[in-house]
């Protein structure tokens, strides 16, 4: 078995499930012959043909709106939005149609679809190519938002998204697209959604993150372990709806929590986790809840990007503050 990257794992899951489920349609800008600008759909057109892998006109709202119609007809659309920074024309369709179709028809029509898009910073891309706006979507009832952090999870979570009966936004941390390789067996086995992954177990502090920031978080955990601190590291993976049970359980054990997110600090997923833990587990806490996040600024262009991105150093600083609190 060859080790593959996250982007190859996305491609593998798509090809694997498309062979099993003929209702899956992949479409978007440049996804056909070109195989997607990151090559997520490479080879799919050759394998599955014009009717199942379609290059669309360049219009994000149309791509999302088309998905709404196709899903209501029993197809399983898997549109690609080329970059999350360009999803906003499609936001209307996702929020006002896809997310609420099942509810507003009282279950008569449903919207099984997986809307894939690369997101996040760290590759020195042009403006609008680096934002982390996952919280905007996680806030909308009726949607699921799933973020893989490595190739293994990209394969298993994408299969789960493709099999889910409701609309799923599958956000791919593009900084990790080719960062690491895993041996991924094409076994057709999906991971459960709405379930955190526990990457490391310890007793002294809980570090929670998702997406690309899992890599810095794990590196920080390794540093902390050198000081004799043992760490629970949790990958949230499905940020909506979130599995709070795993996080509560960890906090009950460690009493200390630091949340790491690439997105701006205010009003994000980290805020929601902090609020939930404060509401339900405040008596388990030995220290305040710490957050390491992007600044509440416009995502800077390439030159200042490094200043913006939460680093291992920032995570360590916050973790040590929480560890030393009492």
């Amino acid at each position, binding site marked *: 078995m060859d080790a593959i990257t996250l982007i190859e794992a996305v491609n593998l899951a798509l090809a694997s499930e498309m062979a099993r489920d003929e209702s899956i349609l992949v479409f978007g800008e440049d996804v056909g012959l070109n195989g997607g600008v990151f090559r997520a759909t490479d080879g799919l057109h050759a394998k599955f043909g014009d009717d199942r892998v379609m290059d669309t006109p360049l*219009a994000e709202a149309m791509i999302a709106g*088309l998905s*709404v119609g*196709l899903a209501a*007809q029993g197809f399983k659309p898997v549109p690609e939005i080329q970059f999350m920074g360009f999803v906003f024309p499609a936001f*209307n369709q996702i929020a006002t*149609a896809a997310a609420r179709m099942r509810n*507003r028809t009282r279950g008569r029509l449903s919207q099984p679809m997986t809307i894939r898009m690369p997101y996040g910073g760290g590759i020195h891309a042009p403006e609008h190519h680096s934002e982390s706006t996952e919280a905007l979507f996680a806030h909308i009832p009726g949607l699921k938002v799933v973020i893989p952090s490595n190739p293994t999870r990209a394969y298993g979570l994408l299969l789960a998204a493709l099999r*889910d*009966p409701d609309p799923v936004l599958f956000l791919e941390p593009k900084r990790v697209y080719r960062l690491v390789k895993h041996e991924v067996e094409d076994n057709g086995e999906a991971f459960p959604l709405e379930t955190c992954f526990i990457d490391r177990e310890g007793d002294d502090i809980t570090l929670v993150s998702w997406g690309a920031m899992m890599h810095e978080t794990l590196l920080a955990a390794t540093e902390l372990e050198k000081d004799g601190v043992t760490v629970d590291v949790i990958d949230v993976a499905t940020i909506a709806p979130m599995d709070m049970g795993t996080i509560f359980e960890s906090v009950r054990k460690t009493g200390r929590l630091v949340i790491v997110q690439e997105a701006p600090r205010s009003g994000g997923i980290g805020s929601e986790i902090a609020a939930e833990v404060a509401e339900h587990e405040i008596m388990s806490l030995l220290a305040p809840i710490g957050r390491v996040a992007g600044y509440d600024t416009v995502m800077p262009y390439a030159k200042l990007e490094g200043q913006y991105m939460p680093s291992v150093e920032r995570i360590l600083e916050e973790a040590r503050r929480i560890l030393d609190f009492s």
Partner: protein
Amino acid sequence: MKTAASFEIGYQQYLDENAKPVNDLPAFARDEKSLMQMYADMQFLRVLDKRAVGMQRIGKMRTYPSSLGQEAVGIGAGGALNEDDVVIPYYRGTGMMLSHYIHAHEILLYWGGDERGTCYKDERAGQDFPIAVPIATQILHAAGVATAIKLRGEKRCVMTEIGEGGTSEGEFYEGLNVAGIWNLPMVTIVNNNQWAISVPSARQTKAQTYAQKALAAGVDCLQVDGNDIIAVRDAARQAVEKARNGGGPTLIEAICYRLGDHTTADDASRYHDPEVAKAAREREPVKRLGDYLLSLGNIKQKDLDAVEDAAKDKVEEEVALYFDQLENHPQKAADMFDYLYAELPEKTRPQREEAIRREGK
């Protein structure tokens, strides 16, 4: 300079403003029975709208958009559909919805604030969409459904509707563009009732017609007299037939006049010119067809009155069903949660319990 492209937009009318035929009528319109049915369908919509607005005034209905003066558009177009076609309605699509087996009491339920109004119990309406409120989003849904139909190689089509104001939205163009390039089985009706709430048509576009907006996408288009149901029906029948047989999309601009307010939440007297509105009332579609039917000689005023009375009775039956649902079988608090996802997330379950606990307290 050479001409790279040129165009003309057809205008279709069978009955003029005085209800006199200006062209040979299509076959269906030479049958008095089918004309009487169209008259009855328009009367039903008119009576229903009047009743709904009346209910709103006494607190028995929420905000409601009447189709007054636009009955020939929705009824004319919707009546051209087959059972297995799909309707993607917008908020003033009552006529089209009624024409495709969506019940009046369901439409009343929706505007009465009850989600069950978009369940659509009739199987023939089972694939029809709920009413699109965000403007022009429905054009893309129609394109999606039409893509599904085309991919499956089915002989069916989709019909959707939008106001002339809605054609200013980007999603309108995006939908027509893909319908053109993919040759989708899709019929788009533009209800040009001259007003987008308070903004007149003259401030919506510099184009001479709304129909020609489709031309830029390579979509066949024409303009029809939207007060002449024969013209609307004829154009829609041809468009539906063409779409079902692989001929691709059509856009039909139907010109009429919104004789009422935008919705019950609006007061058109703030911006309507009463003289213009008065003149428009002379051209309205129910009167137009009624006058034509009377001119044929066999049908008398009492026959038309009987149609109106029958419509009133039928509307009362639907109103009774509406009240029965609202008053005797109201939705439960749990219904807010039970159709959100196929399975309610763990995190949301305590909220459902809370809503149930608080219900009726």
